């Protein structure tokens, strides 16, 4: 137990990062549940390849990360705008990707 406590302490957890990873874990759980309830079917949308639901979530998350990084590198405006853009991108990929 002490080793576990040391490990968690050394990970230097903060609330925002904890919430972020809890969100990712929840998303994975929802995706697993959805896969059992409604098995995914590959489809072709605006992305240049056929994708499963999992592919689209992965591409959406990856794109969201790059949008935030590009915003930090190129734009001086608050990061919230990048987050709004990332949510829009994620929804776009999930629905039409």
């Amino acid at each position, binding site marked *: 137990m002490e080793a576990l406590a040391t490990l968690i302490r050394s990970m230097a*957890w*903060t609330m925002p990062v904890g919430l972020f990873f809890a969100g990712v874990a929840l998303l994975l759980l929802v995706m697993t549940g959805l896969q059992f309830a409604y098995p995914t079917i590959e489809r072709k949308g605006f992305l240049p390849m056929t994708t499963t639901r999992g592919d689209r979530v992965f591409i959406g998350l*990856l794109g969201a990360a790059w949008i935030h990084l590009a915003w930090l590198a190129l734009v001086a405006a608050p990061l919230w705008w990048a987050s709004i853009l990332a949510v829009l991108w994620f929804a776009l990929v999930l629905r039409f990707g």
Partner: protein
Amino acid sequence: MDKIENNKAWFLVLPVFVIVAISAIIPLMTVVNYAFQDIFSPQDRYWVGTEWFESVLADDDLHGALIRQFVFSFVILLIEIPLGIALALAMPARGWRASLALVLMALPLLIPWNVVGTIWQVFARADIGLGGWLVNALGIPYNYTSDPVAAWLTIVVMDVWHWTPLVVLLCYAGLRAIPDAYYQAAAIDGATPWKVFRHIELPKMRGVLLIAVLLRFMDSFMIYTEPFVVTGGGPGNATTFLSIHLTKIAIGQMDLGPAAAISIIYFLIILTLSFVFYNVMTRMGTGERA
């Protein structure tokens, strides 16, 4: 009749989940935590938001290391993949010569990375190394400790020597898996060696080439030990690749926050490019078009 599902297999993959969690997920979560804090010790730390990301994204040293890294990986793939295919095609198919060739090919892969670096560090030296001395004796000025071009050449040649055998062995395995009937049919049709390669061997090697490209890209993009031992990132910053730059920040300067931010950017680049390579190569030859 309904298919009977046996979920006991999930317990068999449980050890893999545990190993991946310990070796990858926990360190990754730690790095993400560190990237948003100024950390002096686990108890003495301060939330800084995106400050580290903003500073490293504007850092010219990081831009330089990133460009060098891309150029290095591109050059490595450009040399090692065609050379690996060519050597695999030239290797004997059976008999004692095939066994000997396989053993010789496997030898560089068995040598630890730091030993490879040390071998080449000594071999390429202009004063005491056989290779360096020989090049200078031919009238070509060569000193990898002071000339950036010579340093690059040394690192590239060393990587080609060390890792082309991996591509060769993968391609060789792919070639040997092609049934003789394909070659017999090609011979009946009067196919030239080029046409046999283009329409039989290359498509049949697609799977192993995918693995070879992915492995060599990821490995070359993460290269650290060999160039660090040979040149230490120099002369100047000429061979400071991303991992060497990252180590300088993390270990040399003990700037854990910026180092964590660079690690996340590094991770995202590898993840994205591997995903793109995987998708492009798995769709190549299957007829799927964009």
